[in-house]
């Protein structure tokens, strides 16, 4: 029995080597800790970059410009048979599920969260240069305002979250949302320096500027006051943004920003680059102005790159999918028009609404029967090679469509951007055209519409550039001018909403045939006025909010 005494002794000596808690500590080698971050200008730059990256969506079919085009009377749904999202947008339906617009919702809130983090932690950032500091903070306000404006335009009332915390808020009123938007844009305008476009280093292309903030402020103001029948925006911190103030900002932008109109409307679109390979460009001696700083007409744009890819998830957003989705659907090589998914075929009535001498008519729309449009007039395959395309009208937009031409070295037909910047030789990944969110003519027309003293001058500048004669400025004239100048740029739908003309516009889209997988069928536009023109909030959000969020009118099950 004495030996039994050894048992605990031996057990203790042999077994219990204690190594303490530090054995269980581990380090994250690939991520920085949030508590140590948002302290240096470099941190803020990186954090801002991550907000900018939310301007692009991974799911190309939820590109906001594309969605707004299809919602409007400029484009039909199109795409392939199974591209329900386009058809649903076109018909105000949710056939393909109640979560189908989740990605654009989610991307916007992702941007808002990241901007909130910057704004919330900005005090701890240490800057030496006050101008740089104000610019960075101004950009954060600008981006947050932009995302809330887009949410307000697409979904109506949405939860308004201004702190980086997980909260479950009910929908805010339009007054609250646009009050916050105006407040943020105002801060952005006031914080950012009035540096002329030409004096901003080209390395900063893509960053928001004071001028972009002034333009976006006008857009928000017009939308809110129009849609909700208001005269001014009340700010949450008190005071308000008035029409006069907005006009003053626009006048300032027009006078001092250095932005202006290019001499030829068409030279800002990539087809101008196709030159000798494209009869229309050749005949009109078009010269693409490029995206490397020479285009002072672009006030704010989403920047893309050759680094889009299918893996890892999310990186498709690095290339311009608006272009891929809007391109002619699955055609053989039709120089200069590259292939894509055929979303948003152009309403033939829009084509007819242009005056023939308006350079923007052929400058914005491909008529597939026109020999000047290249191979397309002879070799176009209705429905695409997969015989799967629907709602084809024979018209496609040419502002955002891939330009493919023979490679100067190999002769292979590839994207012009692939020739310029390399990247992947893959038609799904090679589009990297800037997606312009604000163009100078828009600023001119908004100023005219808001009643600037220079209204007639501004209006005529836009018309003259299009090759048209002056005419007296009026709201109706501005409406038509906006439609023609800004077609396919994601602006039209929100113009219709604020003018309360969406129902009339959509129900007028009729009395023509489209081809569904090559079969001719009549088309009639559909609008459901009970939706007020807003999309449904993703159903999963309604469920996850445990009833705090309510579905939008017209979409309640």
């Amino acid at each position, binding site marked *: 029995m004495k030996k039994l005494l050894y048992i605990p002794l031996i057990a203790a000596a042999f077994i219990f*080597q204690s190594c303490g808690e530090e054995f269980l500590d581990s380090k994250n080698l690939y991520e920085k800790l949030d508590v140590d971050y948002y302290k240096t200008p470099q941190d803020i730059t990186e954090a801002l970059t991550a907000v900018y990256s939310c301007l692009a969506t991974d799911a190309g079919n939820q590109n906001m410009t594309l969605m707004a085009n299809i919602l409007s009377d400029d484009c039909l749904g199109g795409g392939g048979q199974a591209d329900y999202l386009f058809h649903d947008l076109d018909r105000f339906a949710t056939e393909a599920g109640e979560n189908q617009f989740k990605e654009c919702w989610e991307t916007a809130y992702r*941007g808002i*969260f990241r901007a909130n983090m910057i704004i919330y932690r900005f005090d701890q950032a240490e800057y030496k240069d006050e101008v740089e500091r104000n610019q960075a903070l101004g950009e954060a306000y600008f981006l947050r305002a932009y995302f809330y404006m887009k949410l307000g335009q697409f979904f109506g009332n949405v939860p308004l979250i201004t702190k980086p915390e997980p909260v479950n808020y009910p929908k805010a009123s339009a007054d609250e949302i646009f009050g916050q938007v105006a407040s943020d844009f105002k801060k952005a305008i006031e914080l950012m320096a009035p540096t002329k476009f030409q004096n901003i280093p080209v390395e900063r292309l893509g960053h928001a500027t004071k001028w972009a903030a002034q333009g976006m402020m006008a857009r928000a103001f017009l939308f809110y006051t129009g849609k909700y029948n208001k005269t001014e925006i009340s700010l949450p911190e008190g005071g308000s943004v008035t029409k006069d103030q907005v006009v003053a900002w626009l006048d300032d932008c027009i006078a001092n920003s250095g932005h202006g109109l290019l001499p030829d409307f068409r030279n800002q679109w990539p087809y101008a680059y196709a030159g000798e390979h494209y009869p229309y460009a050749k005949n009109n001696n078009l010269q693409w102005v490029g995206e490397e700083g020479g285009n002072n007409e672009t006030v704010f744009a989403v920047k893309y*790159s050759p680094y889009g890819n299918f893996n890892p998830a999310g990186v498709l957003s690095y290339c311009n999918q608006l272009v891929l989705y809007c391109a002619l659907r699955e055609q053989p090589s039709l120089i200069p028009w590259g292939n894509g998914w055929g979303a948003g075929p152009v309403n033939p009535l829009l084509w007819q609404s242009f005056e023939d001498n308006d350079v923007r008519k052929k400058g914005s729309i491909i008529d597939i029967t026109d020999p000047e449009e290249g191979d397309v007039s002879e070799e176009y395959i209705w429905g695409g090679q997969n015989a799967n395309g629907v709602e084809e009208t024979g018209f496609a937009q040419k502002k955002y469509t891939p330009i493919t031409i023979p490679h100067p070295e190999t002769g292979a037909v590839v994207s012009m951007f692939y020739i310029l910047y390399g990247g992947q030789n893959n038609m799904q990944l090679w589009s990297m055209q800037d997606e312009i969110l604000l163009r100078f003519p828009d600023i001119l027309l908004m100023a005219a519409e808001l009643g600037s003293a220079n209204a007639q001058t501004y209006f005529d500048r836009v018309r003259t550039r299009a090759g048209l004669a002056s005419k007296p400025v009026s709201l109706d004239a501005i409406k038509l001018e906006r439609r023609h100048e800004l077609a396919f740029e994601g602006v039209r739908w929100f113009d219709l909403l604020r003018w309360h003309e969406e129902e009339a516009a959509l129900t007028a889209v009729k009395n023509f045939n489209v081809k569904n997988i090559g079969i001719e069928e009549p088309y009639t536009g559909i609008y459901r006025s009970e939706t007020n023109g807003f999309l449904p909030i993703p159903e999963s959000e309604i469920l996850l909010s445990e009833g705090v969020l309510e579905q939008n009118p017209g979409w309640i099950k």
Partner: protein
Amino acid sequence: MAPQLGAFFYEKCIFDKHISPLIEQFLPLLILFNAYIYRTNSNNKINLRPMISDLFKQLNQRNFIRSHLFLILLLAFQVAAFAQGRMVSGTVTDASNEPLPGVNVLIKGTTVGTITDINGKYSIGVSKTNDILVFSFIGYNEHSVVVDNNAVIDVILKEDILQLNEVVAIGYGVQKKKLSTGATLNVKGEDIQKLNTTRPIDALQGLSPGVSIQQSNGLPGSEARVYIRGIGTIGHAKPLYVIDGVSADNIDHIAPSEIESIDILKDAASAAIYGSRAANGVILVTTKRGSKNQKPMISYDFYNGWQSVYKDPGLLNAQQYRDIVVEANENSGGKPLDFVKTVPNWDKIESGEWKGTNWFDEMLTDNAQVQNHSLSIIGGSERSTYSMGFGYHDEVSILGPQGNNKYKRLSARLNSEHIVIQSDGRSILKVGENLSYTNTKNPTFRTGNIYWNDLHNALVANPFLPMYAEDETDKAYPYHYAIAWNSADVNPIALLEYNGKYNTNSNNSILGNVYAELEPIKNLKLRSSYGITAGFGSSRQFTPPYELATRTVVAQDQVTQRMYQNFTWTWTNTASYSKSIGSHNLTAVVGNEMMRNSVNLQLSGKNEKSLFGDFEHAYLYNVTAIDPTYTTLSGRDDYGESLMSYFGRLSYDINETYLFTAVLRADGSSNFDEGHRWGTFPSLSAGWVVSNESFMQNVPFINFLKVRASWGENGNKNIDKFQYLSSLSYDVAAYYFGPDKTIQSNGAYPARLPNPNVSWETSEQISAGFDLHIVDSRLQLVFDWYQKNTRDWLVLAPALATNGTAAPYINGGEVRNQGVELALNWNDKIGDFRYGVNATVSNNKNEVVEIKNDEKIIHGPANVLSQGTGEMFRAQVGYPIGYFWGYETDGVMQNEAEVAAYVTPENELYFKDQVPGDLRFVDQNKDGKINDDDKVMIGDPNPDFIFGLQFTADYKGFSFLINANGKAGHQIAKSYRSFADSPRQNYTKDVYNRWHGEGTSDRYPRLTFKTHRNMTNISDIYIEDADFLRIGNITLGYDFKQLLKRLPIEQLRLYVTARNILTLTNYSGMDPEVGYGPTPWASGIDLGLFPSSKTYMIGVNVKF
């Protein structure tokens, strides 16, 4: 000891802070090792007992140096003499008078022993008349005889039919099977080996009630899906595998011939000793080891097999396909299809001269060979035992790129154990090791979703597309380019070849441990074991430039190289003690374990434009131009995972009749935040051997009856790391400021909402059952019932998108698995004819009990069966995990009258465009709309029943085996083509079941060329019952030793085997065993899954 110690030095933490206690711990071993050396060299017998006793005294005083010196002195002087007396000899035979070679004969209480020779004869020297000879042999009852004055003792050993004295592995120890109180299952290596499966786990199919073993796909080298007692989580639901005490991801790399036995711990009480890793059950593998005084036995096994596909998918040929697409096009009102313009050589198809390309046949390798060699040597001397094994497996995959479609596995194993110090027939110190090395090479074949599946590609490619280019001399592009008929349709063989042929990989794994076991006083065993699992490997790929369709272009050749390395060590120390006092028997184990995954290195590089442009030279060294748009490099080494544990088990019984076991394990894991790291996992179990009771002695037909019950809790710690931290991510947050689109600015954002409280998943299980042996123990019956609740699932529960960043893992779900298991075993012998039947059946019901969000759902993805189809499976409260979610259909509208009758409660047509041939979707809520609210459970991929049946028979050297297994009560969602969006994909002959006129079908709708709700709506027409019974193995063998008795070998068995030759099922697809699902918790989705093959093989087993 040196290597063992040395290995620790890799870990600085240990070295710095823990080396001195370590030396303290190992010093005694070093001392005893010295003693051993001394004794071996001098051939002396020494009595170690007083020495040990003194050693401990010294240990107590913590004066190691002194004790060491003291011992060496002691050893130098002490010599023990050993007396030998007269000789006893005899013959050992079995009941049928056949001599038994290899029987252990031992003088009780000593280490003096011998073994019988090939004729069953032995002779042994005894010293006293009251010496007792103990005869023992595996599979036979032990027999003891008092020597008395006999010179000849012949013995007949009886077979141990009950095998109750057999010991089974239970985790950190072994236990007599009859004393087990949990639900465990023991399968012997020989039963696994004789089924000749590539993966050892497959041999358990049908033999293991309650264990679902399902191939993920039939590609050799792919991992099987194993669930014990139902799927317990939507996260990591794999069981824990432990090979000779070292945990591993799976056991697929072990050659079946190297396995001694597999033990499956199914209930929580049995598994609780593995704590935080045991929530999904534990599978223990013991590899072969030699036994004492066993002459070297050499076994060589070889088989060669020929595999073919079990069932052809039945693709349409060009003419059949033409007829079907014409019909579909007409149904959609399309203008006539222009074949002449879009299909090359249309006249040859029109005339029937050319039947088109059958892409499945083109992908198939006929008579794909499988070859297996295994060689093993097992033996032992009085003090050392060893086992060495070498295996080589070479299997051609039935589908794959010609020339590079082999799975190869080369394995080597060495297990040995040495008694270093022995005294009075008792080993004082044992050391040993188990070491295995495996090298595998996997074939290249994509088996995934509809965009990542080579077989699916072959099933959907249209038969109009010729295989080769018209001008086959074109070396650059010998394969045919996509044709205008369907420009998206890429030559699947070309794609497979370009992406899979120029590829090689080599994967190495080393797994093993070294251990020492000290038994300073009888029945107190102190064991220390250091185990490693290490993996390293590399792969290399060359993709030639190719152009197969407008969208399938690789302009420049590509070279990819990858390599990885990982290393995990486990240090386990246990002390066990057993003691019997009267009728009270007690066994206790306490232990400590540290595990650390310390290296997880991965490097990869990809570049384009190689200098040589061929596979042979496809190394990154030969591709030098760096261009950020096509050069990718990545390298990372995850900061490892640590686990620290303390555990104990107490087993107590009275008279081997009343049995109790209690287990407690505490685990600390680095996956969680401080304060949430430690978990405690208790269990209790009890058993009552009713048949030992006196009142049962009058019930002669019951030979053995034990009832068991257990309760326990286990954990699951497997989640992504650092979920408790709020950290910044640089993933997918770049932007492109400035004039140059190739200049990237990196962005950072908070990666997730942290959840510092994230902690274990816990599975709590109660289990009860009985073991019954009747009819002279010829019939053995094992029954179990269980209820397993896995709660606090580690889930990425959907959170509000307005949060703006990813949701963290939360402990937020619970599933209940409940079921019964029954195993029946009948063994009998009629003269020389011996036969056995083994039947198992188990039932499991899986139901999600809780998901912690308002929706109570975790959604599956969309676009699974086809682009353009919605979510089709989900985990939802009240339903089984991964159930199929969709519309119920009510047949096909046969005529206009039925079309007019398919109306809403308001008497309106459900669809304005409904026509005969369309499906009637059931409006479950009668709201006049067919929408998501009408979707219901239309199928469940989790089987209700798993069953197996095996019959074996032996007669005078002949042996026969037939084995069948099956599953029932589950469904498969099948779609071999994308019905929703791809009208020009090929069909299988299933299409002939479509509706094409009144009365032709009441299940499948008319065909359409346009996308139609008939097919885009996921409904029960995609779902099929998948009950099946598969004849897994039929083997007939003969041992030629029976004929040629003089052969100097023990066994020369030749056999023929047919594997998977018959599957009884109503399922229409290629294979009813469908493990694929797009998420780890989904299964039963058949998009054209690599089918298992039918194999005929011949083989030989030779033993010397």
